[in-house]
């Protein structure tokens, strides 16, 4: 994998609620608390790869997804698209970089404009960007809908006339209509029923092989991530704590958080299990613990963990982990 990654994040951070300027304070705006949603994340994704991003609510995985998709600028650090820093691109290159990554959202209800017909939802962006001429739009939209598993005869309908699974397919058709090289799937199957979820996952698997799509697959559901991903990154409170190929993460997890997470996932095979190995609450991102963010809940923590932030580094071939335990041998 020596070729240039399709997308590369270097020391990327995202803060929300910057302190207000003097002027807006004068106008009475309340100072917002600063939240470090993503801090110093390094991540690279190569063409054709599916990287799973796992974490619990509030860990910053959705924010990271939006940074990758170019919907939000990073507060610091570099996002490189095909090796080029995305913030330094010309307007035309920036647009093509933006179109190159498309998002599939969690809530199929709110991700579609309720006042537009499906044909317009899918066809708008390719038409505006000149990917298709006016005469070709009809057949192009039909093709995109068919590719996403939708009957093109339904294209005069509005989103509210579709079921959840079908709406998710519309969202996929809309994203694919601008011919992206990469998809960011943000909890794209979380809101769906199990049987529909399986259909959408299968659709992703098909599209991946057919179109050689690169994919960042964000989910809290370890089972789904394990099933679709080549590589998996585990996030905890804004930081990536472990990253490795899916086989390694699910067979030999290194970070105590990954281990705990895997132990807590209910599985069909485990009957009458005893739940509850991990203690404590998820800390608030407003007020994260010092040092390693996981140390208050970690069964192995020692004094260094509360003082020093562990670095994400290679601990075995193709496995990176951020834990001080790896320094004690």
């Amino acid at each position, binding site marked *: 994998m020596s070729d240039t990654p399709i997308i590369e994040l270097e020391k990327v951070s995202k803060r929300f609620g910057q302190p207000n300027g003097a002027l*807006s304070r004068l106008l009475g705006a309340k100072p917002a608390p600063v939240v470090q949603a993503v801090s110093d994340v390094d991540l690279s994704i190569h063409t054709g790869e599916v990287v799973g991003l796992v974490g619990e609510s509030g860990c910053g995985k959705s924010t990271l997804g939006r940074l990758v998709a170019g919907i939000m600028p990073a507060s610091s650090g570099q996002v490189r698209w095909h090796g080029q820093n995305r913030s330094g691109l010309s307007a035309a290159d920036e*647009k093509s970089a933006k*179109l190159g990554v498309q998002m599939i*959202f969690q809530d199929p209800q709110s991700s579609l*404009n309720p006042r537009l*017909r499906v044909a317009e939802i899918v066809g708008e962006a390719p038409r*505006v960007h000149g990917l298709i001429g006016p005469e070709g739009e009809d057949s192009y939209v039909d093709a995109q809908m068919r590719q996403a598993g939708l009957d093109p005869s339904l294209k005069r*309908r509005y989103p509210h006339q579709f079921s959840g699974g079908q709406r998710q397919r519309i969202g996929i058709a809309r994203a694919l209509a601008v011919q992206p090289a990469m998809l960011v799937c943000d909890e794209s199957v979380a809101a769906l029923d199990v049987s529909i979820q399986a259909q959408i996952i299968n659709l992703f698997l098909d599209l991946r092989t057919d179109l050689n799509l690169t994919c960042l697959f964000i989910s809290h559901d370890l089972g789904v991530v394990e099933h679709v991903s080549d590589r998996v990154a585990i996030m905890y409170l804004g930081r990536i704590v472990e990253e490795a190929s899916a086989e390694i993460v699910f067979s030999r997890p290194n970070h105590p958080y990954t281990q705990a997470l895997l132990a807590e996932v209910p599985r069909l095979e485990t009957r009458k299990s005893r739940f509850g190995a991990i203690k404590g609450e998820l800390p608030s991102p407003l007020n994260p613990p010092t040092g390693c963010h996981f140390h208050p809940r970690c069964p192995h923590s020692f004094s260094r963990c509360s003082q020093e932030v562990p670095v994400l580094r290679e601990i075995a071939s193709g496995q990176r982990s951020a834990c001080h335990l790896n320094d004690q041998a």
Partner: protein
Amino acid sequence: MNEPSPTRLALSAFARSGTGMSGAAVLAALIVLATIGHGIAPQNPYDLKSLDIMDAQLPPGSASMDGMRFLLGTDTLGRDLFSAILYGLRTSLLVGVTSTVAALIIGTTLGLIAGWAGGFVEGLIMRIVDLQLSLPAILVALVLISLTGPGAANVIVALILVQWAVYARTVRSVVLVERQRDYVVAATGLALPRARVLFRHVLPNCLAPLIVLATVAIAGAITLEATLSFLGIGLPVTQPSLGLLIANGFAYLMSGAYWISIFPGVVLFAVVMSINLVGDTLRDVLNPRLQR
């Protein structure tokens, strides 16, 4: 095959509502009356030549000296009240609608700018809005009119000034909600031009609360104008609205000439009530939480 749009669905829900439809029917009738009023009025109540002081304060149903019937009686100048009400209705509706539409446009524009631009611009606009909204409409109108003097144009300006802030605040808050929605994020991700996202995606989804608000606001504007006229600082005597007609009759209540004040009042009430009924039903059918 065209599927019903969300707008069509809301309209058909409206058509099923009894109160909404009866309000709409009364309103439609009143609008028709106001439009053709000058044609069907038995006399031009403001052409002094057609008035006869001998006909003054006749009760409803009386006949004039020259045989004309005064359906709703006459006022102190011998003016046919029915005709006066038709003229007044037209004026009231015109003032209410004009000022509301203007305020709607101004408020919506500023609200969109505030919600979309954010930062300093938003802060500035919203401070002004807060200031405006912390003062009751009638007070602001009172002061403005006392400065500029009465007159149709001044009343309309005052009505615009007291109304725009509500729209600005509503539009801004809806825009803030809508722009967080995934479909707007998706439109951004599809690199669609900002103006297109704003006007084609965000704005149409903000319209529902605005329509409701504007409907009710027309009723409010008509009432406020009537109130100002009643206090004697509204429209000029040469162009009386329903409010002024009521005020004119107020003094004669004591002497038993109830009709001079009552009938214009009933019409005013019917106008405001029918608009409110329509607005109330619209609120129900356009409520996004009930929409499926």
